[in-house]
């Protein structure tokens, strides 16, 4: 059965806040950055100034920031198309992320993929996202297996959506990780819709967390509107995994505020449902207010923070548009390790105008 996340241990100072203030402020910065990025990118998409697709994570920043925050640099993250915010928290460079959206050579996939189908294994231990759901789950089992075989205390954390839990891979991966007691944390970002499909058409149980019982592992359900609750639940699970006690399933409940992708007006989403969630469970505003009430930040700090966020976005945007497209001749390189494409710097002669 699902159990509520246990309260976090009081930190050294004896205060009840789970993290030092500077970290809390940085957490707010990431929440704001992810929200702002999401809004600006959608605007550019609507103006036809952004190629390809966008998958908004708005309304779910609490899940993404809270889970990724509990990871160390050596831990690995296996996200989906919806989880770019978690990758940013894990350390991806916004400039290179934006270069990827515009198909430029400085993007993490060197222009080979777009939008949130991104990752940076070599630098930040994030899996380069694949569309097929939830195909990174079995891969996370393998990373966790390596940690166990190697005897390190690293942990793998995988995220997928509510809809992806209906897929066989979800079951196989969690079951196998439980059999071998692997150091992995299974996160389900339950934003209540799979494209247009509501939870009720994806599974017949009230919660996803309670399915953990079918694997003999703990299941935790939390509200994604409270980033600290998500962080604490994840930290508990991560510590369990590090201690060799095996996997945990975390269901973080939120709502997808925008369409499945940029083109989707999401007419199927009940207006009232959306309004309520935006009013009560906005993870960004909730955390901002919490820090203000707690006196961790002031209104002025907040203003400065927003300027910083805007500047970061502008810097990323300029970087992206100034980055050249990949050279056409490189299209077929880098399939095999031995051609050396990935172990050397790529050509930068592709120009900045779409061919």
């Amino acid at each position, binding site marked *: 059965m699902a159990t509520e996340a246990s309260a976090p241990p009081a930190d050294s100072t004896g205060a009840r806040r789970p993290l030092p203030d500077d970290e809390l402020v940085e957490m707010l910065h990431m929440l704001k950055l992810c929200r702002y990025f999401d809004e600006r990118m959608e605007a550019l998409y609507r103006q036809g100034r952004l190629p390809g697709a*966008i998958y908004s994570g708005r309304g779910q920043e609490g899940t993404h920031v809270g889970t990724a925050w509990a990871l160390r640099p050596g831990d690995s993250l296996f996200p989906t198309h919806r989880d770019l915010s978690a990758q940013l928290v894990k350390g991806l460079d916004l400039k290179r992320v934006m270069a990827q959206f515009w*198909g430029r050579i400085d993007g993490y996939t060197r222009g080979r993929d777009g939008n949130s189908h991104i990752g940076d294994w070599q630098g930040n231990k994030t899996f380069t996202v694949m569309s097929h759901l939830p195909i990174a789950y079995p891969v996370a089992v393998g990373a966790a297996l390596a940690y166990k075989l190697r005897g390190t205390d690293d942990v793998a954390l995988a995220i997928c959506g509510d809809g992806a839990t209906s*897929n066989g891979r979800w079951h196989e991966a969690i079951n196998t990780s439980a059999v071998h007691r692997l150091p992995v944390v299974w996160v389900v970002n339950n934003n209540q819709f799979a494209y247009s499909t509501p939870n009720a058409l994806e599974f017949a149980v009230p919660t996803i967390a309670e399915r953990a019982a079918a694997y003999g592992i703990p299941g935790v359900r939390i509200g994604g509107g409270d980033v600290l609750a998500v962080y604490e639940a994840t930290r508990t699970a991560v510590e369990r995994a590090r201690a060799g006690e095996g996997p945990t399933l975390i269901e973080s409940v939120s709502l997808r505020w925008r369409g499945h992708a940029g083109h989707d007006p999401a007419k199927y989403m009940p207006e009232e449902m959306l309004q309520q969630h935006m009013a009560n469970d906005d993870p960004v505003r909730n955390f901002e207010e919490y820090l203000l009430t707690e006196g961790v930040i002031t209104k002025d700090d907040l203003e400065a923070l927003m300027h910083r966020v805007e500047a970061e976005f502008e810097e990323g945007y300029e970087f992206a548009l100034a980055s050249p497209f990949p050279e056409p001749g490189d299209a077929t390189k880098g399939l095999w390790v031995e051609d050396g494409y990935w172990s050397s710097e790529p050509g930068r002669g592709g120009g900045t105008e779409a061919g």
Partner: protein
Amino acid sequence: MATTAPVESGAAGHGAEPRGKRGDDGQATYLIAVAEALWEEMERDERVYMLGEDIGVYGGAFKVTEGFLDRFGPNRVIDTPIAEETIVGMAVGSAMEGLRPIAEFQYADFMSSGFDSIATVLGRYHYRSGVPLPVVLRGPSGGYVRASSFHSVNPEPWFAYGGGIKIVAPAFPADAKGLMKSAVRDDNPVMYLEHKWIYRRIKEQVPTDPDFVVPIGSADVKREGSDVSIVTYGALVHKSLEAAENLSQRGISAEVVDLRTVHPIDEDTVLASIAKTSRALVVTESYRFVGIGAEVGATIAEKAFEHLDAPVRRLAPQNMPVPFSPTLEDAFLPQVADIERAVEELSAW
């Protein structure tokens, strides 16, 4: 040809925009033609029903099934969980019980997630049991829309290899309508690939006769020519026609053969064209190695040897993911200029 601009922003061309209707001139897009065929077959035969992801309330990622739920109800337009193996299993099991399912894959790319149920069950069950499986699997395939690795695949060789599944890939609205009707009426499994680059780009007059069908297994010569035969299908039919037009300006007469069905292949039509031109260029979006072009090339080499005045050339992408960046995708997939160059080389032989 439409420019790629509107597609680049527009999420791989999939549809917020409604499907639209025939114009007063009776012209229909490929998208509309597919939907018309499905609608008419649902009207004609109660046993026909649809299942897939987001095909009901949403009307499908590309709006093919827009309006179907209202007309046919939730028992004949079924939204499924994200479980492709089971979607195919459901189609098979219900077909065993006499229904005629049409399963939509949100993208043909995700047919790989149902691979075992398609290749192992759907393709192999009749041969061992004698039970007919009138199942249609349909989905948008192909590239040229900046949709990158996982939304641009051409899966046909994966599913042709195991056998037992007919595979069609129309290039024109009328063929699309006629082949869909044949697919739904066929008592064998049929995989129906809709090219997403064509959906809203190509329109033409489409027959309204409810029994208009295009037989599965028949290719069609879309342009007569005498110097070189271009054997192709899907989006590349249109690019080949454009190339042929340009080549004619330079005095080269290219014939364009649209396979329409990629498994089994209409060898007679292909070989008749080679007998006429003595030169063959096989142009596919299907990858080069063990792709549909390999089969066509090997077949021509085996059965039209005495007619050939030049080697059978293949123009096809390498076997690797379709890249996202415009500079890469344009270099990676066959383009009109590539076709022209290859034809010129062949005719110079």
